[in-house]
Every structure is written in structure tokens, then in C-alpha cells.
């Protein structure tokens, strides 16, 4: 795996961020602001290390994006926060409750939207929401109101009594979100919330997530869609091979790891190979970008650079720079 890391120009590297984490607030009533705190967390499945010394600190009230390639350990991390996967080592606290011992209390106060659809296909939207309102201990007198509110959030009122099997993919995803919000949680975990959705539904979910953040709910969202993280997250942590390798607001991550401008050079494969060669000789940071070679930090290039199209650097550039181009 080739990692083109921007170690020389760190803005907020992991070690700096961890300074803030010296005293994680394990007790919400004592006034601090950590919604999630993970320290030195390891998880192995047989010979595979899924999470390898993870430190993660999510302050209350932010939308936090966990970005990483497939297999980076994002889903394992998410499952550990509900104690459905138990860490081999390390400490985890969610909303001030220590896991796994107090996980049930933590789960009572958070909502989870899973990556894989696990709706009961035989039930109607209303039935599913009612069952989960009970599971989340919504008092009997408030249950039907909570169900109506959740149906409203998901724009599913006209489908309230439709069996899940008959819903479209986008509706099912919205129902999953509504189910996770049935008890008005103060922390929501979203695992790849928009994977496999068409742009319209994705936009709709994005505004829903943005609305949650605006209402003070802490959101931890894992995604491998760069755009999603860039648009929604206040802070992004890039995860690779079971660790956080960089963290910060999306804009800062971009300038730290990809610079301000990117020069994209298009051409035939032979030309691209030559450009790639030129880049490594010149010590320029570059990556393949579909049909082009993208040279990062184009603002620092001198006249020897080939002709190409200049564009602003984005989180994808930083992401590839951090996690490498090779596919495992």
C-alpha cells in the first residue's frame, strides 16, 4: 500500500488532536462535552486486525464524518459503539457510559441507522416504528405521537400502513433513519447512510442529517463517499487499516494533504505514464484521477509542469493522498 502522506505540513495530525483527548469526559452530568470517546481500541477477528489502536473523540453537537476505504474498520467501529462487537483492548465511552458494561444505557440514548437494511419486511412502517418505540422505552402515552413524528421526518406518512416489502429502496432507507430517531436520541450513528441511493434520495437524507445537527444532535456518520463527508461533516477523521490517520475540518484536511490547487493532466496512457514519471522525478505529489494524472499542490509548481486543467483541491485528493491508491 502506497501512502503519500503529508507529514511535512500537518495542520491537525492525530497526535495533536489527541492532546484534547487527554481527559475524555466519561460523565455527561459533569458538564464536559464528549459524546464518544475511544482510546487505544483494538479488535481482531481471527488473524485479521479490523481496528488497530483506534483513538476517536467526538464532541457533543457536531456532525463527525468517519471516512475510509472499504475494509478500513469503519463498520467494526460503529458496531463497537453499540457493544455488538466487543473490543479486545482499549476503552470506549458513549454519552458518558462505559462500554460494554453500561452499553444498554448508552443505547437507550442513541439512535442507530445501519448500513444493511434490517427492516422487518413483513410489517408496516407504523408497526415497525411502534415496536422500536417500545424497545426504546418511549412511554405509552407518547408512543403514537413519536411514531407520527418519525413518519413525518421520513416523509412516509402516506405509506404508514404499507408493508415494508412494498416500499422502494429509498423509502426503506428513510424508514431505517426514522426508526433510529423514534426516541429523539441525542447521538445518532449513521453507517454509510446513503450507500446505493439515487441522487434525489441522497439529497433528502443529507438535508435530514443537516437538520439533526442543527437541532443539536451529535451525528457520527461513516461513509466512503467523499462528497458526503465534505458537505455534512464539521470534522472528518480519515480511517485506514483500523486507525485514524488524519483528522480535522474538511477544508483543513484538504489544504494539509492536497494543497490549494490541483493540476489535472489528460492524455493517452503513454502520456499519463510519462507525466507520472515526471511527477515523481520532480518530487510532485500526484495521483491517478480517472483518465488524468492529478498533480497536487499545483500552486507550488514552477514552469516545468505539463499543461493541464487547474482546479481547486478537494477532499478526495486528500483522501487518496492519505490512504493510498492501491486497492486491497
Amino acid at each position, binding site marked *: 500500500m502506497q501512502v503519500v502522506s503529508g507529514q511535512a505540513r500537518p495542520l491537525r495530525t492525530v497526535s495533536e488532536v489527541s492532546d484534547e483527548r487527554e481527559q475524555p469526559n466519561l460523565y455527561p452530568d459533569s458538564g464536559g462535552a464528549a459524546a464518544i470517546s475511544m482510546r487505544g481500541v483494538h479488535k481482531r*477477528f481471527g488473524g485479521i486486525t479490523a481496528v488497530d489502536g483506534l483513538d476517536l473523540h467526538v464532541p457533543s453537537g457536531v456532525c463527525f464524518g468517519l471516512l475510509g476505504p472499504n475494509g478500513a474498520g469503519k463498520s467494526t467501529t460503529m*458496531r463497537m459503539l*453499540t*457493544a*455488538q*462487537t*466487543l473490543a479486545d483492548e482499549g476503552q470506549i465511552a458513549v454519552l458518558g*457510559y*462505559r462500554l*460494554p*458494561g*453500561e*452499553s*444498554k*444505557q448508552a*443505547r*437507550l440514548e442513541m439512535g*442507530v441507522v*445501519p448500513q*444493511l*437494511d*434490517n*427492516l*422487518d*419486511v*413483513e*410489517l408496516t412502517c407504523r*408497526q415497525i416504528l*411502534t*415496536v*422500536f418505540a*417500545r*424497545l*426504546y*422505552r418511549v412511554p405509552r402515552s407518547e408512543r403514537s405521537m413519536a411514531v407520527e413524528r418519525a413518519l413525518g421526518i421520513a416523509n412516509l406518512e402516506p405509506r404508514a400502513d404499507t408493508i415494508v416489502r412494498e416500499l422502494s429502496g429509498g423509502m426503506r432507507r428513510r424508514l431505517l433513519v426514522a*426508526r433510529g430517531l423514534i426516541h429523539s436520541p441525542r447521538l445518532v450513528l449513521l453507517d454509510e447512510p446513503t450507500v446505493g441511493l439515487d441522487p434525489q434520495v441522497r439529497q433528502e437524507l443529507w438535508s435530514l442529517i443537516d437538520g439533526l445537527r442543527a437541532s443539536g444532535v451529535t451525528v457520527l456518520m461513516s461513509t466512503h463517499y467523499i462528497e458526503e463527508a465534505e458537505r455534512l461533516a464539521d470534522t472528518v477523521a480519515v480511517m485506514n487499516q483500523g486507525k485514524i490517520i488524519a483528522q480535522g475540518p474538511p477544508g483543513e484536511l484538504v489544504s494539509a494533504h492536497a494543497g490549494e490547487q490541483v493540476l489535472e493532466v489528460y492524455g493517452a496512457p503513454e502520456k499519463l505514464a510519462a507525466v507520472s514519471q515526471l511527477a515523481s522525478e520532480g518530487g510532485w505529489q500526484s495521483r491517478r484521477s480517472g483518465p488524468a494524472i492529478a498533480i497536487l499542490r499545483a500552486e507550488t509548481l514552477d514552469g516545468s509542469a505539463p499543461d493541464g486543467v487547474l482546479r481547486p483541491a478537494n477532499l478526495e485528493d486528500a483522501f487518496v493522498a492519505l490512504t493510498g491508491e492501491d486497492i486491497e
Partner: protein
Amino acid sequence: MSTPTEPRSAPRRIGRLEPAALAGVMSRDVAIFGRYWKATTFSSVVQPTIYLLAFGLGFGSLVHTVAHVKYVPYVATGVVATAILFSSAFPGMFNTFVRWQFQRTYDAMLAAPVDVEELITAEMLWVSLRAGVYGLAPLLVGIAFGLQPEAGMLLVPLIGFVTGFGFVGFGVTIAAVAKTIDNFNYITSAVLTPMFLVAGTFFPVSNLPDGVRQAAQVNPLYHCVQLVRDASLGGLNTADLGHGAVLLVFAVLMWRVAIWSLGKRLID
């Protein structure tokens, strides 16, 4: 679930086996039952009817009494036990496997404030309550075929509940260790069906070879059959305390084994 490394006072800590969690999980079963109760009820009436037609009227014309009991009442009470077995062991295996592996319902519920112990206990409670109630169906069919109603029959739902609790726990355990849903065929043919042979459902075990009679003593279905038969035919005696005790031990044992074996798979 393990306990926190450093104990501290948690003011809003919630406990084990909370009624609210059990009720929540069971409310889902009730909602699904609302969709399928007609089919369930239909098959639980038709099946014993066919058994009674085949064995009671068919064999009954050849065999009039078995172990001093008329053959129709003998078979009707035997069918109660098979109904309880099927309506608990099969949901234990299939529903558990489907909800866990295919629908991931259990994953969804365990992300809510429900522990593995509560989830499995609630599922087992629901199945065994249903098995207890539906255990009455063969008796009702039997009454239609001339079985004498008895006050002791009112104990059948309780016997069915305890037996069903054990068998659904057995089913859940099998689901937890099965690699694929096809593995259940082995259990059905190699474990459940042979149980009939040594349970006294359609013929008494007393005529069987010595070793097989011994085997009946460790067969929960045998104890269920004896208890149901004695209760339904007005013959309850002290030996039934022993049968009841075996069923209770079986139920509690399978409950813990089910939680342990599926829990290991649900939480990794």
C-alpha cells in the same frame, strides 16, 4: 455481558431481563402473528385431525385399547405433545436463523436497549406461549372425535408452555450452530423424528426393548406425553411430579444454553 472494569454508581442504570424489553421484543412477534394467525390456526387444527383420522380411525379399528386407554384418546393426547414439539422446535430453528442471518432483525434490536438475554428470552417466551395455547387444538379435535372433556385438560397449556420453552431453546441452539438453513434437515430427521419412537405418542414405550425404554427417560417429549395424557384423561398421580420436574429442568437448561450459544454469535 461483562461488567465495567471500574464499578461506579450509575443513577439511571437499567437492569437485566427488564419487562419493558421483553414486551418490546414480543410486541414484534405479536404484530407478525397478526398477519399469520389464520394459517397457523388452520394447520394446527388440520394436522391433528389427519393424525386422528389416520391413527385413531384407521388403526383404531384394529387396536381398541393401548395400555388400558382407548386408542382415540391415547392418540389425541399423543398428538398434543407432537404439536407442542413442532410448534416450538421449528420456530426455534427457522425463525431464529431467518431473523438473525437473513433479515438481521436481531442486529437491529440489539442496537436498541435490548440485551441478548432479553432478546432470546422474549422470543422463547412468545413461541412457548403460543405452543401452549395451540397444544389445546388436538384436544379440541379429539373432543370432536369423542374424547371426554376433563378439568385436567386446563393444565395442558402450562405443560405445553414448559415443554415448548425447552424445545424452542433447543431450536435456537441448533440455529446458533448451524452453518446453513439446510443443516436443519439433519436435526429434523436424526433428532426430532426419532424422538417420536421413544415418546409413547402413538404406541407405548413399555413394549419396546429395554435400552429404548431407558432412552425414553431422557426424552423430554416422553415426559410431556405422559403428563398431558395423565392430565387429560383424569389420571394425574405422583409420578407426574417427576415428569413435570424433568420438563422444568429441560426448559431452564435449554434457556441458558440457547442464550449462551446464540449470544456468542450475535455479539462478536
